[in-house]
């Protein structure tokens, strides 16, 4: 006997033993036989008798039916196993096996490649549903206390589970092949389906079942969870919610538990989607076969054409019938299709508490400082040892790489924030009867974790405004020669160390005249003052506009836009608006990459160094003596480009003594905060630098005028000025 046959013989013996002692419905023994058959099937290539493979397949199929209680007679199984042993014995003696297998194969059942069970399942379903319906009618009024409790448990638990679906959908849109996320969505439907069947909630059961089928396709990788599928799932979630709330009402009022909601249109939609995806999945099999070199591309196209004429046939069957491919090769390909069906390998990831990350970033900062102090240590410098210098340089490189890496740990793609807007836009559009298509770009742009969280609300606000007031009704749009479908775009990208987020729509734009009118009425602008269009549009971010309802509803935007501006400024960002009448508006949010680093101008006052956030600086210059004046009741002023701006002596605010007391000897830096400007008098500019912000600790947290501390290159501390705070101090003191 050849070596390859031995394991088959062993498995056959094991199996025969189980079969002989098989006692009716012994599921565990059937399981053991199944395992043996699987092993034999895997090894059957060793036996040079095609009939052996065929019989193995037939026995396996019959075994499955026994397990599923579709058959109860074990005699054909015994006969089949016996026959397998006969073939095996013939093969090990290298004889041909001549017996006619026809009758036995017949008994074991026809080999079916088509999923006949689908149909069986469907009819079973209908039957049980009808039963359920009848029972329902009879039992409706006799709910006992236990039933009522279970039902109300079901209501609250199901609603909770359904709520989790939305969140998971976001993950899924992020990565449509994320099995974990698909499962998390699948599970609530599955469970609701199961429990509703017990509780005789027929419609809920049907709908949950339909949605489950859809997600099952997604799990198998046949369809991707995006666009339409997400719509369908959300629609099902909403419908299920309403039906389950109906159960709750029914319980309370003692009326029917299932309201007269019509689920059939939704079910039809789901069904047609599933059928379409079925039609598509065959192509992938073909691709695999071509890749494996089993068939040629030309052959595949030919067979696919044939499949179009015989839509009820599967591609694999056609290929096998034409003898273009071996059944084994088709099965192999099907298997790999299932296993790898477009699924991408997962990156290894772990979850880390953000507090730990913050500590890491903080400690890395300390390390950088310690390292720089070491480099500037005079004793070390005086040693002048080359080896020591080399080592210090290496330490320098390592620490700076470490710092960069630590910083990047806090960065996350903006994708998830963008994706949360999908549902928002969908709902808003539906509510207002408008058609809006949301597109996005640059979702991979990374941004500080802490910024992302804070960004959500202002973005929601702007998007709500864009859909509610910016984009017109479909009829209006068409009348103006625009497509009925409005477009809303989210775009993120990096520019010069900042993250830019744009929210643009192709709506009607802002009404310049109305804004100006309202601003004048509110005394926000003095007169016709030559304001640029952009300056006028940006007026809507002024607090006064938040109450201007009647104007904003005509002009488009404005409700609560000051809130948006404040939130963005809290993140040390800026927001601007651009608008073209009739063509739409663009909101641009400009944010620092991270809250942990600030770009600042290092300035010197007396012996102290301070850092002014670069974002607030307009310009710096040394004024002529003539530019400086004192205005009665208003204090010192500097004339900058024809405008008088208050002069603040920084040394007085911070409590030190500057080197220069005359503005025309020192230096002036003009800063801006919320449209107010002032000039800071100081001694010297030391240069622009990116510094890591460090909190001053609990005790010093509330000191006005200081935003935090930073460790400078030489290891000493520099204080970061808080411009908003400086304005407050200046207003009180001067």
């Amino acid at each position, binding site marked *: 006997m050849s070596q390859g046959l031995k394991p088959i013989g062993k498995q056959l013996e094991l199996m025969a033993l189980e079969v002989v002692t098989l006692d009716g419905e012994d599921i565990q023994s059937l*399981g053991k036989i199944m395992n043996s058959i699987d092993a034999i099937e895997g090894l059957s290539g060793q036996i040079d008798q095609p009939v052996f493979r065929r019989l193995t397949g037939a026995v396996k199929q019959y075994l499955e039916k026994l397990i599923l209680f579709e058959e109860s007679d074990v005699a054909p199984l015994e006969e089949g196993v016996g026959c397998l042993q006969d073939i095996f014995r013939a093969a090990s003696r290298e004889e041909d096996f001549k017996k006619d297998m026809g009758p036995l194969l017949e008994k074991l059942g026809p080999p079916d490649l088509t999923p006949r*069970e689908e149909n069986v399942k469907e009819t079973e379903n209908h039957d049980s549903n009808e039963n359920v319906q009848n029972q329902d009618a009879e039992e409706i009024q006799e709910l006992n206390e236990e039933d009522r409790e279970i039902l109300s448990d079901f209501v609250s*638990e*199901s609603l909770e589970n359904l709520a989790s679906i939305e969140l998971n959908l976001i993950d899924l849109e992020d990565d449509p092949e994320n099995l974990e996320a698909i499962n998390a969505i*699948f599970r609530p439907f599955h*469970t609701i389906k199961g429990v509703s*069947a017990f509780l005789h909630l027929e419609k809920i059961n049907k709908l949950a079942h339909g949605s489950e089928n859809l997600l099952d396709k997604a799990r198998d990788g046949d369809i991707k969870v995006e666009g339409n599928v997400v719509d369908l799932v959300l629609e099902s979630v909403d419908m299920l919610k309403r039906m389950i709330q109906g159960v709750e009402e029914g319980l309370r009022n003692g009326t029917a538990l299932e309201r007269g909601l019509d689920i059939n249109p939704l079910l039809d939609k789901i069904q047609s989607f599933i059928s379409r995806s079925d039609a598509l999945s065959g192509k992938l099999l073909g691709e695999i076969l071509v890749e494996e070199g089993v068939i040629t591309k030309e052959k595949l196209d030919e067979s696919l054409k044939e499949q179009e004429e015989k839509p009820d046939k599967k591609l694999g069957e056609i290929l096998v019938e034409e003898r273009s491919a071996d059944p084994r090769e088709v099965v192999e390909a099907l298997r790999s299709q299932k296993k790898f069906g477009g699924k991408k390998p997962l990156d290894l990831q772990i979850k880390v508490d953000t507090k730990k990350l913050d500590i890491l970033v903080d400690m890395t900062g300390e390390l950088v400082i310690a390292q720089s102090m070491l480099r500037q240590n005079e004793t070390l410098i005086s040693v002048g040892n080359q080896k020591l210098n080399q080592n210090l340089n290496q330490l320098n490189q390592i620490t700076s790489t470490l710092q960069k890496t630590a910083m990047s740990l806090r960065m996350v793609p903006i994708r998830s924030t963008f994706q949360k807007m999908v549902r928002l836009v969908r709902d808003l559009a539906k509510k207002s009867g408008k058609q809006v298509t949301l597109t996005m770009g640059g979702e991979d742009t990374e941004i500080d974790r802490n910024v992302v969280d804070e960004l959500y609300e202002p973005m929601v606000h702007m998007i709500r405004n864009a859909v509610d007031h910016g984009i017109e009704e479909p009829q209006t749009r068409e009348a103006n020669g625009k497509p009925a479908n409005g477009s809303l775009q989210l775009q993120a990208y990096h520019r010069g160390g900042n993250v830019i987020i744009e929210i643009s729509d192709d709506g009607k734009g802002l009404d310049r005249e109305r804004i100006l009118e309202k601003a004048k009425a509110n005394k926000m602008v003095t007169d016709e003052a030559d304001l640029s269009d952009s300056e006028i549009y940006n007026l809507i971010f002024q607090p006064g506009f938040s109450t201007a309802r009647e104007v904003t509803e005509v002009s488009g935007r404005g409700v609560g836009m000051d809130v948006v501006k404040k939130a963005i400024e809290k993140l040390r960002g800026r927001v601007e608006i651009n608008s073209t009448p009739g063509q739409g508006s663009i909101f641009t949010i400009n944010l620092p990459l991270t809250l942990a680093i600030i770009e600042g101008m290092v300035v010197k006052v007396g012996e102290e160094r301070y850092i002014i956030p670069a974002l607030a600086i307009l310009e710096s210059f040394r004024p002529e003596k003539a530019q400086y004046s004192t205005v009665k009741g208003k204090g010192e002023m500097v004339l900058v480009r024809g405008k008088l701006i208050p002069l603040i002596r920084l040394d007085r605010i911070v409590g030190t003594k500057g080197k220069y007391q005359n503005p025309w000897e020192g230096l002036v830096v003009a800063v801006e905060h919320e449209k107010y400007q002032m000039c800071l008098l100081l001694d010297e500019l030391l240069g622009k630098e990116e510094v890591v912000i460090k909190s001053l600790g609990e005790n010093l947290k509330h000191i006005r005028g200081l935003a935090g501390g930073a460790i400078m290159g030489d290891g000493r501390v520099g204080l970061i000025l808080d411009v908003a705070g400086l304005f407050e101090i200046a207003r009180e003191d001067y």
Partner: protein
Amino acid sequence: MGFDTSIKVLIVDDFATMRRIVKGVLKQLGFSNIVEAEDGSAALSELKKDPVGLIVSDWNMPKMSGLDLLKAVRGNASLKDIPFVMVTAEGQKENVIEAVKAGVNNYIMKPFTPETFSEKLEKVLGD
């Protein structure tokens, strides 16, 4: 009924309502010593604390599925002989075959009546 109802039964299901339903059916059949777990890993730690005479587990659960629980139980020397009944949804034939191959004692498809459940238990616990 031909089986011992004094044994301790562990119900594993992530959905509390479902656990309640199964518990109700078991009580109707005369069982009174019943513990619950909301997924496979919780069930395992429960089992390690105190073994039971029967496990009734759902298939589809987060963290650790019913199949993984079954495999873990069968792979553990002190737990491997505990009768294990898998609850699956109707139409999940592939799952049934998987579970049978992994050594489940029996399975039952949702929705089920106390009668069918009792029949299955008879097969699993009878003797």
